[in-house]
């Protein structure tokens, strides 16, 4: 919940950060950094200030700093979220930050989401499968406007990894494709340009590492910064895959 934002902007903040460096053999430990809150301060601004003034070695990942690229997923007070668009004024003055679980740890707040997401793309073949090469000079094949919008709705995933970090199933089954993987399948299943059938998709997600593994805890949807309809997509896919598996 947002607090009334009449902030005077001068609170003393403490960032309590889970530090570690696997390559340097530094074991995980909490470290506190103190700084003064500024007007409109985001965790992007706060973390950069810590790095510039207090500890130049602090590791974290930001790219767009606008909530678009998905680089800065981390546990903010225990909950996965995008740091760049988290305003400090919406948080208590003691803010704990930890790296996203599940992903390979690089150091401090930096995790290797790239490796995980590439693995997902390879495993689920997250591209349009078409047997024909498009004629680029011909008029494009028409598509119903509503269908294009429905595909975009699912295409908005930014692969930030928040759903992966919030997933109870993934703690038990390392091979689970996660909400992100299932959403990708839902997206390509909806796309008439992809010639794969439900039987093909069943081969990819028709077991307990796929759509039947989900325990329906559904934190994925709670923490998705893009508000993707993950819950309905998983339920829908499960129904379709049951039909396909019969």
């Amino acid at each position, binding site marked *: 919940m947002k607090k009334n*934002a009449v902030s005077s902007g001068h609170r003393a903040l403490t960032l309590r950060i889970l530090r570690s460096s696997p390559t340097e053999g530094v074991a995980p430990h909490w470290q506190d950094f103190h700084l003064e809150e500024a007007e409109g301060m985001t965790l992007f601004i706060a973390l950069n200030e810590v790095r510039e003034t207090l500890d*130049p070695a602090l590791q974290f990942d930001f*790219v767009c700093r606008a*909530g678009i690229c998905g680089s800065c997923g981390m546990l903010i007070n225990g909950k996965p979220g995008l740091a760049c668009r988290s305003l400090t004024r919406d948080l208590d003055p003691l803010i704990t930050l930890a790296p996203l679980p599940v992903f390979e740890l690089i150091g401090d707040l930096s995790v290797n989401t790239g490796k995980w997401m590439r693995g997902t793309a390879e495993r689920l073949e997250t591209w349009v499968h078409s047997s024909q090469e498009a004629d680029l000079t011909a*008029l494009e094949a028409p598509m119903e*406007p509503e269908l294009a*919008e429905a595909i975009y709705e699912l295409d*908005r995933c930014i692969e930030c990894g928040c759903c992966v970090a919030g997933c109870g199933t993934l703690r038990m089954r390392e091979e689970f494709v996660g909400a992100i993987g299932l959403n990708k399948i839902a997206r390509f299943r909806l796309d008439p*340009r992809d010639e794969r059938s439900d039987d093909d998709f069943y081969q990819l997600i028709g077991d307990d590492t796929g759509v039947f593994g989900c325990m329906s805890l559904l934190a994925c949807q709670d923490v998705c910064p893009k508000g993707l309809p993950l819950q309905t997509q998983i339920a829908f896919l499960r129904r379709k895959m049951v039909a396909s598996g019969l």
Partner: protein
Amino acid sequence: MRIIYTDVLVVGGGLAGLRAAVGARRRGHDVIILSLVPPKRSHSAAAQGGMQASLGNTVKGEGDNEDVHFEDTVRGSDWGCDQDVARLFVHTAPQAVRELAAWGVPWNRIKAGDREVIMDGKRVTLTEGQAAHGLIAARDFGGTKKWRTCYVSDGTGHAMLYAVSDQAVAESIPVHERMEALALIHEGGRCHGAVVRNLVSGELTAYVAKATCIATGGFGRIYRVTSNAVINEGIGAAIALETGAACLGNMEAVQFHPTTIFPAGILVTEGCRGDGGLLKDAAGHRFMPDYEPEKKELASRDVVSRRMEEHIRAGHGVKSRFGEHLWLDITLLGAAHIDGKLREVKEICQHFLGIDPSRDLIPVRPAQHYSMGGIRTDARGHARGLKGLFACGEAACWDLHGFNRLGGNSVAETVVAGMIVGENMADFVESAAGELQVSTALVRECLDAEQAKLDTLLHGNGTESGAELMRRMQDIMTDKVGIFRTGELLHSAVEELQGLLVRSRRIGLRTRRPGANPELVTAYRVQKMLKLALCVAYGALQRTESRGAHFREDYPRRDDASWLKRTLATWHDDFQTLPTLDYEALDVTAMELPPGWRGYGARNAIEHPATAGRAAEISAIRSAFGHADRFTVQQALMPFDHLIPSRFRGRNARLGETS
């Protein structure tokens, strides 16, 4: 010594690099992509509003074609672009959109029948034809005669990047993430690859390649106030500059986007104005029609940004604790439109400003946005001065944009240039010139030199702070090399930047670990970024005219007689504190569209002596070909077919156009 060999090395995993890589891979060559971040995190994802291509499907795009897109682009560039390249680009852009459609990009589609839109502040009904139903839609953007910008809500770059990145996965192209090229390996005017640092382990590796392509994007982060992502530091352009062989073109041509949210500098798309949004001042007055009666809010970006700053200077800005700004009003578009077509804008407003743009005005002010300058290449994307080095996208000065880029032409350039450069690299690799002839002694020498520089930073006794030099450079660029430039300000910027460059040779670190070390990264990057900043500031100081985004208050006229030429910056020796500038004249007698008035902005250019002659020649050609089709006439004016890779030579089909 760790060496990795490949046919093609692509530095940069954004749209341009990915598309070039896919092209070369499909021709059967081994390709490796290096990327600072996972490729889907690249700044291409932040392109919101759309990409220009003259499909002409929408009723407001009727009559659009390559010719119209070409003229808009050349006028937009203020005649600074390479017209061959502009032709090549407008020809290929429709194919790029259609290829992306086949790859799954969910382009917004046309719905036949009536719909209400906002144009010039008024509600208007448009009727889309039945034949266009389901074809790719387009929205209006600045500086264009037709609605030509194809879009996916306001997440166009995201949708494009994901589709192309997944194609690279489909082609099994390895992407080596968190890897940074620190130097190019080159000798005798031939590039052989790059020395690359692993950002996690700190290890250096030599990547040896027949063809190397730099696609690292722009260098907006040399400015304090920029819409660019934090990774847009221009290191790819800088390492090309540091070869002393390749050169950077038109570095002083820097675009400032009119609408970034104030004060964070985060972009809100030109689509806001394209879809009918208005700019307003402190009094709530819509001021753009006062300055630009014809194009109003939809003049080119350089013009709108300048008018906004001019209006603030005249005392009409909204005062706030962070300084002054203006308002972007999209409330008139309605919540339904914003929820569907401007949803990223809505999210940005919610999260960073705590406002709802369907009810509240958005505080905006221009900020650095795009680098027209970059590695100077020929029309095939081959770097001038260094064989085997290619560049594409924002990192390149291919030179599609001249002194001002049109909105929607950059994300289009990434994929179009990627398509073209991918083919041209494949041709090069298959040619005799592409054979790899490099000694491991040279590779070792390059590796050792880079390791020595890192060791000096890590273990030397320098006392300067890289972060402080970076901050100072960014302040200088924003304060003195901005929208309004003067000889005095530029002179002082150049002096100060030289001082910073000298100081940057004595940076010392508090963190001496060789692996993941953000302080070390800042240190070696600021050394390179200062050279780029000097190319921009010094180029701007020397260019005593105003053209496109380069505006000199002391030389307010475009001077075609003296300055119809491209600045080329080289850096021959590491102890220089200024780039060496040369100039490449643009040939008026070969132009399809000789210099004239843009249709917006000032109308006071100093004419080039050859302009009138060329204009007469063109009218003579046009009347001689009176009844010929537009392709024949174009061919007679400025043939460019030889520059199109063979697979993209066909004519683009359009509704209602028979070819």
